[in-house]
């Protein structure tokens, strides 16, 4: 486990391939505890791959990469770091045939979280009333995102990795996401957010970095 002052993310010339394509082509990045870093950049710049690398889901072909003190260039390091991070990616990672509550309870148990927090998380995300018994396949995109966020809240990760977290949400939902991230950071978490909605995300971020052509500018 890293000391409090150690960087949460430390990449040096990190290369990560999608097939044969270098989605990250020598990225350098340092993220310190308590920061909310906004990743900006055009489509295909490597933002999502950077988040997946930090989550321990993307392999590092060359360079060095440490996340929360774990060497994610190694398979063992990637496996170890996963318990400590939460990723809200393009997919909501929900089972369509299960209800909102069944999904949140399953993933909370799978993530080793406490089931006692599920009801509070559902209420907080505005899906605790009649929606909790609705099948996920019948939810709107915004409601799916709220459900995925409820899973994240129950998981209580130390590093929040959010890929376009505001997409598909109404104004209240966006405010809620910002409040949840802010609250997590106040409690000691760190966040990296990739977003095209610059006005919204810039207000949340403590620092903005540009990702272009697989490099962090």
């Amino acid at each position, binding site marked *: 486990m890293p000391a409090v002052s150690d960087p949460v993310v430390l990449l040096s010339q990190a290369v990560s391939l999608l097939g044969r394509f270098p989605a990250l082509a020598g990225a350098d990045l340092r993220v310190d505890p308590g920061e909310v870093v906004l990743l900006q950049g055009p489509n295909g710049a490597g933002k999502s791959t950077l988040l997946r690398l930090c989550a321990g*889901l993307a392999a590092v072909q060359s360079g060095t990469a440490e996340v929360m003190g774990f060497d994610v260039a190694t398979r063992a390091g990637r496996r170890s770091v996963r*318990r400590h991070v939460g990723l809200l990616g393009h997919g909501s990672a929900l089972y369509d045939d299960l209800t909102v509550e069944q999904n949140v309870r399953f993933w909370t148990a799978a993530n080793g979280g406490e089931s006692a927090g599920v009801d509070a998380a559902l209420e907080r995300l505005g899906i605790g009333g009649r929606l909790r018994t609705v099948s996920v396949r019948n939810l709107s995109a915004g409601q799916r995102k709220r459900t995925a966020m409820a899973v994240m809240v129950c998981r209580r990760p130390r590093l929040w990795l959010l890929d376009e977290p505001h997409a598909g949400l109404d104004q209240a939902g966006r405010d809620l996401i910002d409040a949840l991230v802010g609250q997590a950071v106040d409690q000691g978490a760190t966040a990296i957010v990739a977003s095209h909605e610059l006005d919204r995300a810039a207000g949340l971020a403590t620092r903005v970095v540009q990702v272009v052509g697989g490099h962090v500018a």
Partner: protein
Amino acid sequence: MWRDARLIAAKDLRVEWVSRVLTTQVVPFGLLVLILFGFGISPDLQTFEPGEATSKVAVLEQVAPGLFWLAVLFSALLAIGRSFAIEAVDGNLDALRLAGLDPAGIFLGKAGAVLVELLLLEVVLGFGSFVLYGAPLDNAVLLVTVVVSATVGIASAGTLYAALAAGLRVRDTLVPLLLLPVLAPVLLGASLATEAALFGPASDGWPWLAALGAFAVLYLGAGILAFGSLLEDS
């Protein structure tokens, strides 16, 4: 490992209970295969009993064990494919990796859920075979043991190969191509052991049962050991 296996199996069975794919698609498909086999082999077609020069039996009755297991294998492909289809969408596979569950637990959970589904399927297909083909029963203990052993093997090997193909775009067509040759020994052993259980003597079935048990243990072990790497690379 066992806690994770229970969690995954309960989730998969709950998804199955809600979606009803087993009852509305897999079981009807299996019954359809049985009926089509019945059409393909005339009920009037007869052959001499083994070792008898005068007594004749229906061919359909004689080949009933093989037809039953073929129907099980084809139906199992649907159940196994479904088991990983629910993980291959919407980032679920990534979420499973992130959860930090024991890969061996995930394997056992998914194989366990497929096992339960296939056993339910086999009850229905067994009844269907009895009605359609009219096979007798000589040794129920051997029959039940053969069915359970063969099904553990099918569920284990199927889960392993489905994980191998999980991340590929061509997984739906690749899994049958990979799996059917691997399950050929199960088809052979289970058919001959079932034949012994139905027509006797039971002593002919025990060596095949041992082979089915060895196959099941082999693939259970391989799954427990290799599933982590497969999940990582899929």
